[in-house]
């Protein structure tokens, strides 16, 4: 993988490490491509497609968190608004599918803009809560409104389109569609992160005042990040509603919202790929508790997994590698005479959930 600014240790990776990383990435890609040929169709959709759907939403959260220092709980609402748009346009107005998809993503991005405008003045925990309130507003509105959103029931019978005689929802085709969307979103995040806009966004995350002094328009960058993340969540909403065939307030309730956040944290909130790792862990656990454990207690298992990850690996599963690297580096340095200077490893550490929030309320100020 190429370096991300939140993981500077990767920047100094030697050519050998880079080869290993490329081989690993290629291996994962090949594995993803051949998975539907080897696996039972049930798993292809139940595990594969679901992972990509929720992973894409988690990715939109991670984009804001890792590069913007903003942990948003509003992404599930944007996902839902996109799903609702698809349902309404295809069921009630029979709009052709390319236009439906376009409009759905546009709706999600527009609401991303609105969320961003409302939240832009808040930081850290406050931003988390204002976005949570916005998501709850959307959830409650869809639930209470019968004329547009169909109230508690929402919409059922949403069909994925048939393109060139191929029904997009048939197992293998749909898997590749979701894989394609997920890869597209992932590539877009990696690209934006290295584009001037993404670099400025990371500058703002690390030192807002300096960026402002340099002439960057901090608020504009933050809001734009919300629009981009909204579009990602919107794409997730399109494949999500095609997969489920239905959308209702229950698809975007608080439990779902927290689930997306947990996926991001379990996978690694500082790593874009963490979104999909976290989603996969969730979906696997969901399916295997059904088979091997007491399905009723899924929440206890997932809650415990979440707590344990936060306690032992606060950077998530993908962060474990970097965590170990630092631990070894610290041990190696421990043999040398200590000079009392702050350890260089600390500044090279990937962002923990707390560093991710940037100039948040971790900074203590005197009243």
């Amino acid at each position, binding site marked *: 993988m190429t370096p991300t600014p939140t993981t500077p240790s990767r920047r100094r990776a030697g050519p050998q490490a880079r080869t290993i990383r490329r081989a690993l990435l290629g291996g994962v890609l090949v594995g993803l491509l051949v998975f539907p040929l080897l696996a039972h169709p049930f798993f292809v959709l139940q595990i594969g497609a679901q992972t990509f759907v929720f992973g894409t939403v988690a990715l939109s959260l991670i984009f804001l968190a890792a590069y913007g220092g903003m*942990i948003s709980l509003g992404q599930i609402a944007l996902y839902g608004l996109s799903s609702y748009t698809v349902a309404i346009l295809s069921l009630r107005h029979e709009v052709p599918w390319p236009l439906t998809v376009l409009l759905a993503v546009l709706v999600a991005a527009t609401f991303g803009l609105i969320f961003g405008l*409302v*939240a832009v*003045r*808040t*930081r*850290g*925990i*406050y931003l*988390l*809560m*204002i976005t*949570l*309130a*916005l998501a*709850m*507003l959307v959830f*409650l*509105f869809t639930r*209470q409104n019968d004329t547009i959103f169909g109230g508690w029931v929402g919409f059922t019978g949403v069909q994925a389109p048939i393109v060139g005689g191929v029904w997009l929802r048939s197992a293998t085709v749909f898997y590749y569609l979701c894989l394609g969307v997920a890869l597209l979103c992932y590539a877009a995040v990696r690209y934006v992160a290295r584009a001037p806009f993404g670099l400025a966004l990371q500058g703002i995350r690390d030192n807002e005042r300096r960026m402002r002094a340099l002439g960057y328009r901090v608020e504009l960058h933050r809001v734009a990040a919300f629009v981009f993340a909204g579009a990602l969540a919107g794409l997730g909403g399109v494949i999500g509603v095609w997969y489920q065939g239905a959308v209702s307030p229950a698809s975007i309730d*608080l439990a779902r919202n*927290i689930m997306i*956040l*947990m996926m991001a*944290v379990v996978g690694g909130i500082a790593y874009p790929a963490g979104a999909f790792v976290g989603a996969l862990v969730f979906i696997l656990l969901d399916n295997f508790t059904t088979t091997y454990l007491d399905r*009723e*207690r899924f*929440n*206890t298992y*997932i*809650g*415990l997994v*979440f*707590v344990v990850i*936060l*306690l032992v690996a*606060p950077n998530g599963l993908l962060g474990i590698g970097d965590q170990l690297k630092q631990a070894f580096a610290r041990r190696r340095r421990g043999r040398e005479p200590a000079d009392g200077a702050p350890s260089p490893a600390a500044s090279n550490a990937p962002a*923990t*959930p*707390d560093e*991710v*929030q940037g100039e*948040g*309320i*971790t900074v*203590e*100020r*005197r*009243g």
Partner: protein
Amino acid sequence: MTQFVIAGLNGLTLAALYFIVASGFTLVFGLLRVVNLAHGSLYLLGAYLGWSTWQMTESWVLGVVTAALAMAVVGAVLQVALFSWMQGQDMRQALLTIGLSIVIADQLLRHYGGLAYQMTPPEPLRPATPLTGLGISYPTFRLFVLGLAVLIAVGLWLLLNRTRTGVMIRAGIDDRAMLSASGINVQRVFVLVFALGAGLAGLAGVVGGTAFSVAPGRDVEYLLAALVVVIVGGMGSVGGAALGAVLIGVTQQYGLAYFPTYSYLVTFALMVGVLALRPQGLMGRAA
């Protein structure tokens, strides 16, 4: 007119309950900087414990005391065992409390099932009190909840403003490092405040379980209420919690009475409005 008065009284009762929950939440945040998203779970755990105690002993008062004390112990243990060694990592602590709340909610569901329970208050609080000036009668227990909230508010004010511990807490809210440097055992103050906040949540659980009911989902309901109240009022300010509680409780009940379909949205809309215009809350200090 009668509907207006009753909705207002209902709003104030709800506000009283919200205040008891939110004051504990805001104290913990103000001093420890921990956004305890398991506060609703402490509320529900307290409510169920109170219900079990009440079932066994048939004493409502004992139920309240058990719930408050047990939650205070749980709060102290959480602070000592978990939060004390990840101090300053607000986001990690907040996420951890989310995980805990999910596990607690699920275990409570396993143990108590999905039914709603209600407790009956002790005999003198059971009948309705006629309010002669307004020409209606109103449940005595709800008036008692109002009085209790006022009592707790006064108690907290006295604690914070008239005792040595209160001085330490206020000093800690302003500047933890300085408090520690002046020779105070800050960790002990932290444990104390966490126990106090959690105990208030447990107490509120039994009171709320008597005025309304004890059921799965109440944890999230009261956590969200406390969050909104505290954010509107200003995080870390007990006065702000009181103001926010009255504002939210009363608007919620008037909303329910006059435009029931969208009444649920009002609270969150209010919160979004306050945060967007005054991010530190009505009575909060600029962060």
